[in-house]
């Protein structure tokens, strides 16, 4: 133990690595353990438990340090958080990863479509599924910015908030419905995506991360303090439910869903309706992303992630490429935000803390940057994991933190690390022709 061999990792690196793990644990523990939501009448109350968070972070740090100095001392285990974006080289393209996602995708879609009809789908399962789908959608939205364009955005929750507040304010002030506000919220969020994009055009990596983090906080602080406009910490109450072609999901009313279809009233109708809305929104996000990946703009995003200088030398306008990535990513965040507002009926700045950004980013990173299926798996594992270990109360974060650390050690590039090419030889002719048609647009 005392002699140092050259293959050993230096102690400083091991400590740094443990600190990274602790940071991840902090990001995860803070929202789930640190902030306990208690349902109050007409809204949410919060209960802070920072000492538990501290203990968990300490445990993760100590545990990782212990492992680092014993089992992993001699191995080339890659520290967590090191060079997320340097994925050059590595193993050649694994074909099975591609076919795997080909099977998982349709299977997951079938399950998702049939979920409300399955026997075990009670209110609890549906609520949980809605939450998971919201995070999948947010993960997919952020994946455009972080996974495809390689721009590390720590303030994504700002767009989620902008979407939610846009809808809430439009609905309460102008009496507009969900379906009219949804596109408006997306447009507003995209607009703010561009606003954020401009000052950070020249930034990359760590610097970009810090500025986007600050942006997220600015939005939250403004929402918190602009009392007259946003209601400050009290938030906005009485956000309307979505309607199905004008049919309301209320017990009583002029035009209710259950009366129109001659059903007896059930609160599950609304839940199932919400479930299908978020499923559709998430699928649209996925579809648009997959489509864009094959178009010049999507390929430019990926090229930008790989090498900015090469991008410019190929005639790609990197300014526009970055701005579109921010705008489109933000737009989907805005959609998800207005869905969140309509589902909750109440929003306040508490729902849009940095921890949310960290959680969404964790989903993207854990899933494997740029992988759509990876995001789904990571979101289900994370959100499902939180729920599953709910009985263990304060231990669940510990278990979760450990699981996360193990996953990152076992698969440093995330669960699905293989990138499926947007052009495959078999399809070359077809795609070539495809691009001829669309390449000019």
């Amino acid at each position, binding site marked *: 133990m005392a002699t140092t061999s050259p293959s050993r990792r230096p102690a400083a690196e091991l400590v740094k690595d443990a600190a990274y793990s602790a940071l991840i644990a902090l990001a995860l523990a803070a929202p789930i353990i640190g902030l306990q939501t208690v349902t109050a009448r007409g809204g949410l109350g919060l209960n802070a438990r920072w000492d538990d968070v501290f203990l968990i972070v300490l445990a993760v740090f100590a545990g990782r340090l212990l492992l680092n100095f014993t089992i992993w001392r001699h191995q080339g285990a890659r520290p967590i958080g090191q060079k997320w974006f340097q994925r050059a080289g590595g193993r050649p393209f694994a074909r099975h990863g591609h076919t795997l996602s080909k099977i998982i995708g349709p299977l997951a879609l079938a399950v998702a479509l049939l979920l409300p009809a399955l026997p075990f789908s009670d209110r609890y399962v549906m609520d949980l599924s809605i939450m998971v789908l919201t995070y999948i959608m947010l993960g997919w939205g952020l994946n455009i910015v972080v996974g495809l364009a390689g721009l590390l955005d720590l303030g994504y929750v700002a767009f989620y908030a902008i979407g939610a507040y846009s809808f809430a304010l439009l609905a309460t002030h102008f009496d507009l419905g969900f379906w009219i506000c949804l596109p408006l919220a997306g447009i507003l969020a995209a607009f703010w995506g561009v606003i954020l994009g401009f000052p950070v055009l020249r930034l990359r990596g760590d610097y970009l991360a810090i500025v986007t983090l600050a942006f997220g906080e600015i939005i939250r602080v403004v929402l918190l303090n602009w009392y007259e406009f946003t209601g400050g910490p009290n938030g906005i109450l009485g956000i309307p439910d979505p309607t199905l072609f004008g049919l309301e999901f209320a017990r009583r009313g002029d035009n209710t869903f259950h009366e129109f279809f001659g059903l007896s009233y059930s609160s599950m109708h609304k839940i199932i309706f919400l479930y299908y809305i978020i499923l559709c929104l998430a699928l649209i996000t996925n579809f648009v992303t997959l489509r864009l990946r094959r178009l010049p703009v999507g*390929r*430019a995003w990926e090229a930008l992630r790989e090498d900015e200088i090469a991008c*410019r030398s*190929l005639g790609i306008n990197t300014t526009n490429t970055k701005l579109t990535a921010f705008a489109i990513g933000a737009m989907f965040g805005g959609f998800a935000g207005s869905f969140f507002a309509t589902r909750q009926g109440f929003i306040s700045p508490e729902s849009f803390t940095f921890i949310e950004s960290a959680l969404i980013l964790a989903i993207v990173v854990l899933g494997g940057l740029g992988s759509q299926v990876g995001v789904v798996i990571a979101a289900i594992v994370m959100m499902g994991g939180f729920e599953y270990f709910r009985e263990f109360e304060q231990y669940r974060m510990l278990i979760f933190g450990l699981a996360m650390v193990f996953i990152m050690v076992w698969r440093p590039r995330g669960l699905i690390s293989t990138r499926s090419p947007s052009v*495959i030889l078999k399809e070359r*002719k077809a795609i070539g022709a495809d691009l001829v048609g669309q390449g000019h647009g």
Partner: protein
Amino acid sequence: MNAASPLLSVRGVETYYGNIIALRGVDLDVHVGEIVTLIGANGAGKSTLMMTICGSPQARTGSVTFDGTDITRMPTHEIMRMAIAQSPEGRRIFPRMTVLENLQMGAGVTDLSHFDEDLQKVYELFPVLKARRNQRGGTLSGGEQQMLAIGRALMSRPRLLLLDEPSLGLAPLVVKQIFAAIAELNRTEGLTVFLVEQNAFHALKLAHRGYVMVNGSITMNGTGAELLAREEVRAAYLEGGRH
């Protein structure tokens, strides 16, 4: 276009990095159908000149003209759409993309109607790229990566090809292969090439004309054979460098 006027002309270009001068008034011409090489020691400013032609960084004084258009103040992405293509220093292929995708990125910004045709041409020039078309760029060997970088540049159907040290870090045999490909492109397609090189012997043998850069200024120019024969060139750039 007047056949006598050069395709690329650099006049009195001074380029700075902050307050540090890197190019001290460079004049250089590349005519249609020529291979012109620029040689010089490390840090002479060769890459800086190439990047200045591409507008990043822009020249502080002087002018860069391509095909009669002043491109000195144009943004890089617009310059690179003017039938100029570049294989930058260090190759800079996209490591996570497949060979085919890399090539497609090269064609991506212009008209894609002749993508298949251009792809076949690149595959003929570098057959190894065809064999590796579905392999990720980052897993190619250094020589293959250089071929990919050149192939990617060719996909945009350039009239002027800028190459920055294509021989860097490659075995002599591979260097020969790449230079042979450049010569062939020039001969069969009439492609105009501006080649920045450390490997002065090969570069001057290949090129019609050459320039020698020392500390940000052009100190000599002449035909490849002339420069190869000059004592100063042999002493400074060829001793021990002949392979």
